Every structure is written in structure tokens, then in C-alpha cells.
């Protein structure tokens, strides 16, 4: 990878980036990709379906990756595409698929006017930030990265030189982050099995052991007046079976309202 980036590709890519003002090619790329990036970012926030949001964000991040390459950062651009669009966003998509892709926002605003207020705050912030930056920098001349990239014989060696000198401690400490992330994911996702798994033979013995009921448990009651899972089934002898409902569900007595005839045959509504 070092060789690829250090020699032919980096050479071509760096030729794209002019030091100070933007060249024609870069201008075209900026307007085309910039509009796509901003449009997709807005679409990401506005999309109702979380899946669409993730895909819009992938496009935005891809455009930013190309911007990095244009701005004389081939390594960081490739890392953006590989790490962000390739790994991080795929993890998002994976989790979205796991939790169910139809997870979307309710249309009801819980705080009235929150959406409008949020958008107004955002517009205000954008005006302040964008206006402030534009005013502070104006038409500043960029120094360009030709010299910095050439010092160590290319962009990647230049980055390596910085990472292992000035930023070496921060680099080492990121390992603590990665360990924390791995340990955290293990804690929250890994269920330990207690004891050995039972063999089929043992399970079968257990089922027919003294005092156990070998047949499947009765299902919860399905009656004309209630099909709730909280309604216990009635056994042939008329008693209610506690085995038919989950221990997590509170069994409940039926109220008069529950047992009232619902006129399902005549189609009568609730009077």
C-alpha cells in the first residue's frame, strides 16, 4: 500500500491539487460533489426510514473521501472510504438490520415545536459558523501541501513521520480505546453458558422423569371472549392450568367488560 500510494497514484492525485487557488478541475469537482454531499446530508436527517438515512450518509462520506484525495491527502481519503463507508457505516447497517429495518420515527412530536426550534437553531448556527469562517479567512491563500508531502518523500511517509514523532503518545493511547471497545462489546453482547449443555438423551430422561409432565404444555386460553396470553387455559376437569401461561405474565381475572358479548356476529359496534 505504501508503495502504491507513494509512487504512481500519489503522483497523479497530487497533480490534481494546486497549491493556493483551486484549479478548474477542482472547482468542478467541488461544486458537483459538494452539492451531492450536502444534499445527501440533509436527506439523511430528513429521511423517515433509518435505513435510507444510513445509505445517504454513506454517499456523503464517500464524497468527503474524494475531497480529501483532491486536497493532497490520498492516505486519509482512502482511510475515509475504507474505515467510514466500509466499516463504520456497514456496522450501522448491520445493527439496523438486527433491530429491524422498519424502525422509524413516529410522526408525533413529543415536544411541540421542537422540530421547528431545532431547525431554526441549526440555521442560526450555520449562519454564525459559515459567516464567521468566511469572514475570518476571506480569500486566504492556501500554502498547499507540496512541500510538506515532499519532505519525507510522499504523503504516507510524511504522515508516518508525524505519527511516530510528535503524536506518538496519542497513537499509543488509542490502543486503550480499542481495548475498551472490545471489552465493552463483549460485556454487552456475550452470554455465558452456565454448565455443560444437556445431551438429547439426558433431556429425554428428564422429560419422562417422575413428577414431570411429558406432553407439551397447554397453550394459553383461547376463548370466544378473550384470546389474551394472560388468560390461563381450562383443563378438561375445569381447573385453570398455571402451566399454560408464561411466568412473566400476570394471570388476570376477567372483568365484566371483558366477558360482555361483543356482538361479533351481528357486527354491532361498541354502544
Amino acid at each position, binding site marked *: 500500500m505504501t508503495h502504491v500510494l507513494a509512487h504512481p497514484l500519489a503522483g497523479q492525485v497530487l497533480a490534481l491539487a494546486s497549491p493556493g487557488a483551486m484549479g478548474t478541475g477542482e472547482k468542478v469537482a467541488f461544486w458537483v460533489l459538494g452539492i451531492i454531499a450536502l444534499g445527501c446530508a440533509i436527506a439523511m436527517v430528513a429521511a423517515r426510514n433509518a435505513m435510507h438515512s444510513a445509505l445517504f450518509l454513506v454517499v456523503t462520506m464517500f464524497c468527503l473521501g474524494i475531497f480529501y484525495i483532491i486536497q493532497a491527502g490520498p492516505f486519509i481519503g482512502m482511510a475515509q472510504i475504507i474505515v467510514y463507508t466500509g466499516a463504520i457505516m456497514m456496522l450501522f447497517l448491520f445493527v439496523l438490520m438486527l433491530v429491524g429495518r422498519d424502525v422509524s420515527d413516529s410522526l408525533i412530536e413529543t415536544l411541540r415545536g421542537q422540530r421547528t426550534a431545532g431547525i431554526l437553531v*441549526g440555521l442560526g448556527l450555520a449562519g454564525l459558523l459559515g459567516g464567521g469562517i468566511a469572514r475570518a479567512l476571506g480569500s486566504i491563500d492556501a500554502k498547499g*501541501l507540496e512541500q510538506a508531502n515532499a519532505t519525507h518523500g510522499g504523503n504516507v511517509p510524511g504522515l508516518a513521520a508525524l505519527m511516530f514523532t510528535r503524536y506518538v503518545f496519542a497513537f499509543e493511547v488509542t490502543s486503550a480505546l480499542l481495548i475498551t471497545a472490545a471489552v465493552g462489546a463483549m460485556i454487552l453482547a456475550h452470554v455465558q453458558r452456565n454448565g455443560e449443555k444437556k445431551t438429547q438423551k439426558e433431556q429425554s430422561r428428564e422429560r419422562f422423569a417422575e413428577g414431570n409432565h411429558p406432553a407439551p404444555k397447554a397453550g394459553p386460553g383461547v376463548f370466544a371472549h378473550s384470546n389474551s396470553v394472560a388468560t390461563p387455559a381450562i383443563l378438561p376437569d375445569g381447573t385453570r392450568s398455571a402451566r399454560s401461561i408464561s411466568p412473566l405474565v400476570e394471570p388476570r381475572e376477567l372483568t365484566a367488560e371483558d366477558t360482555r358479548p361483543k356482538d361479533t356476529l351481528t357486527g354491532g359496534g361498541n354502544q
Partner: protein
Amino acid sequence: MTPTYYLVLSAALFCVGAVGVLIRRNAIVVFMSVELMLNAGNLALVTFARINGSLDGQIMAFFVMVVAAAEVVVGLAIIMSIFRTRRSASVDDSNLLKY
């Protein structure tokens, strides 16, 4: 035209992300909006690297990526665990905690 345009674009992306955090109620979409804000920060860092003529900005963008990757793992694990508990990932469902 100067690279300042990239910075204005990055400010716009940052604000779009901030609006997303403020108005969306789905925890995963809120988190994606935060990622957009981090990306806007990265674009600003890379552009300033070019304006200042030093590679430090690119290195910092790289560190932000590493941190974001670790953060995503932890964040999605937490969101997954609460989702398994309540089978929904909406921030407003956090009704137990009130002001």
C-alpha cells in the same frame, strides 16, 4: 476560488448534523448525525492542513477516525442492549427518566 469554500461546506454539514441530533428521536439516526458532525470536523481539519501547509491536520483527522470507530462499537452495543430490552430504539421511549 480558495479552499475557504470547503470550510463553509464543512460548517454546513456540521450544522445539518447538529439539527439531526436535535430533531430526530431514533437513537441510531441521532448517532449517525453525530458521525456526520465528526466528518464535518475532519473536512475542516484536512482543509486547514492544506491552508497551513502542514500535515498535522491530516494526522488529526486520522485520529478522529480511530476514535469514532471505537465510539461506534461502544455506542451501538449500548443501543443494541437497550433495544433488546424494549424492542424499540426511540429516544423518547426513555420515559422513566423525567425532569
